[in-house]
């Protein structure tokens, strides 16, 4: 295989926010003392009058952003995913989503990607929490290319959005020439024996597994489900048609994330579904991201094994 090009999602995020900020004077940003991690500092340095350091006070930050949006601003609100979703859950629910306000919440260092900081800083429930709130849109980009397209779409879209951003360098997958549409899933590799629905970092693991399976004569379709709400159930059903097994792969709890989405979407279809994700448990510290992914079974090897066992 040729050398894979890599990008850091949060760096691309920071650059994109700055770029859209130059184009649209209504864009404002808030951060809770993590701007150097979330990369919102890039916007803050260029537009100090439109950047609000909100201190380590996430509840106020979310409701404050709701207020900003009521004056026609488009606030992008940043923290680590745990502190941007679970901690101010009720503020997101009542201040933002109940009135369907135009607030964009950036859950940075999502999943296990903040490997060293351990369970307090790792979010394996954010998708579940955010999906459960009416009016919320939930996005989970595969790579830097998709991050850029998503941020631009978030500016166009009028309503609350939660964006999951990984902390580490990830391989480029998303087609540069493809348009990102909220609610649409993307086939990144085609095949007909098995379908892997994956999201975020697990797409590259799924592609690795598909490559290996291909050598063994198993043809695998890999689908990037990057909008986790709203979901085009019909598209997921169509993409599953004829497959002997469906595998879901996510860096998130099996409760309320992609496994729940796909299982529900394919209800009534006679296709076995194998969910790969984090069992009902918290994360923990590790010295590298990969070490954690392996520990929780979020590997190409595991995906490959699941497909093989199902279709033998």
């Amino acid at each position: 295989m040729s050398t894979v090009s890599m990008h850091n999602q949060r760096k691309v995020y920071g650059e994109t926010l700055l770029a859209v900020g130059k184009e649209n004077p209504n864009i404002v940003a808030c951060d809770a003392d993590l701007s150097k991690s979330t990369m919102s500092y890039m916007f803050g340095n260029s537009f100090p009058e439109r950047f609000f350091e909100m201190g380590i006070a996430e509840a106020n930050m979310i409701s404050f952003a709701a207020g900003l949006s009521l004056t026609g601003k488009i606030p992008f609100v940043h923290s680590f995913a745990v502190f941007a979703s679970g901690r101010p859950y009720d503020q997101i629910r009542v201040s933002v989503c109940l009135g369907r306000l135009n607030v964009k919440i950036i859950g940075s260092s999502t999943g296990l990607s903040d490997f060293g900081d351990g369970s307090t800083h790792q979010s394996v429930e954010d998708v579940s929490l955010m999906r459960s709130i009416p009016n919320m849109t939930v996005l989970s980009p595969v790579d830097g290319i998709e991050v850029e397209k998503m941020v631009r779409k978030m500016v166009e879209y009028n309503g609350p959005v939660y964006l999951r951003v990984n902390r580490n360098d990830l391989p480029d997958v998303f087609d540069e020439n493809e348009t990102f549409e909220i609610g649409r899933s993307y086939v990144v590799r085609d095949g007909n024996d098995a379908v892997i629905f994956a999201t975020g970092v697990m797409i590259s693991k799924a592609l690795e597994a598909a490559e290996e399976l291909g050598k063994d004569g198993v043809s695998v379709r890999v689908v990037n489900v990057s909008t986790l709400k709203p979901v085009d159930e019909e598209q997921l059903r169509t993409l599953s048609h004829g497959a002997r097994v469906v595998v879901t792969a996510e860096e998130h709890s099996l409760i309320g994330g992609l496994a729940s989405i796909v299982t529900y979407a394919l209800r009534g279809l006679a296709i076995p579904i194998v969910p790969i994700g984090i069992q009902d448990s918290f994360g923990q510290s590790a010295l590298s991201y990969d070490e954690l992914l392996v520990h929780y079974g979020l590997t190409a090897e595991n995906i490959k094994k699941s497909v093989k066992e199902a279709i033998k």
Partner: protein
Amino acid sequence: MTIERLSQKARSMRRSIVRMVGVGKAGHLGGSLSITDVVAALYFSKMKLDKNNPRWEKRDYFLLSKGHAALAQYAALAEIGYFSENELDHVKSLESMLQGHPDMSKTPGVEANTGSLGQGLSIACGIAAGLKIDKSNRQVYCVVGDGELDEGQIWEAAMAASFYKLDNLTAILDNNGLMATGVIAERFDSSPLPEKWRSFGWWVHEIDGHAIKSILEALEEADKVKGQPKMIIAHTVKGKGIPFAENQPAFHNGILTQEQYELALQELGE
């Protein structure tokens, strides 16, 4: 509007509040009556608004952080004419435009969704900050409950407002001294209030929250303050205007009997 006329408005609002609480069903009577005079002074004298257009782009903002006192706001909005007074008979009914707590999507004149305590003041700060970016001279008024001060978010907002010098924000604290279960000072004492707010960087002024003249004067005084957010601590009586309900925690979200209902309207001059 003259002070006498404003007092009449407040009295009329109190009657509407009793009408909305009705007979035999729970309603947030006490806390709605304690802020009635403040709300009347804001809507009928102080705030810039367009009687024909609740979304008028130059209007001042009113946020009811203590959202459970929505009945006082509904009474004012109906009086202005943003919706028919008949709607007041359907408060909290299924599909009603008047929800148990203020809902911006359903009620003309409601600016945000409040009532999950602690959030309204933060929203008010965000609006004030947005107006500052636009160099607008529109003002933001926010009514906060004293029980609500237990919420940590209030103090997060207090710090943010003073850090960002939100002098276009005036909060009015409904200091009736009671929370749902009883006397605040005996349960979770949040005093000393003026000292706390001053130490958070706010201009503080204390008034009798039922003296229309004092309310108006305090709001005028607040206009002169630059460079910091303003807090008017309004000393109020929960249940004000209905003697049997005054200072009674039971009427926080209480039920009126037919006899009490009639007596209440009688007290309010009907």
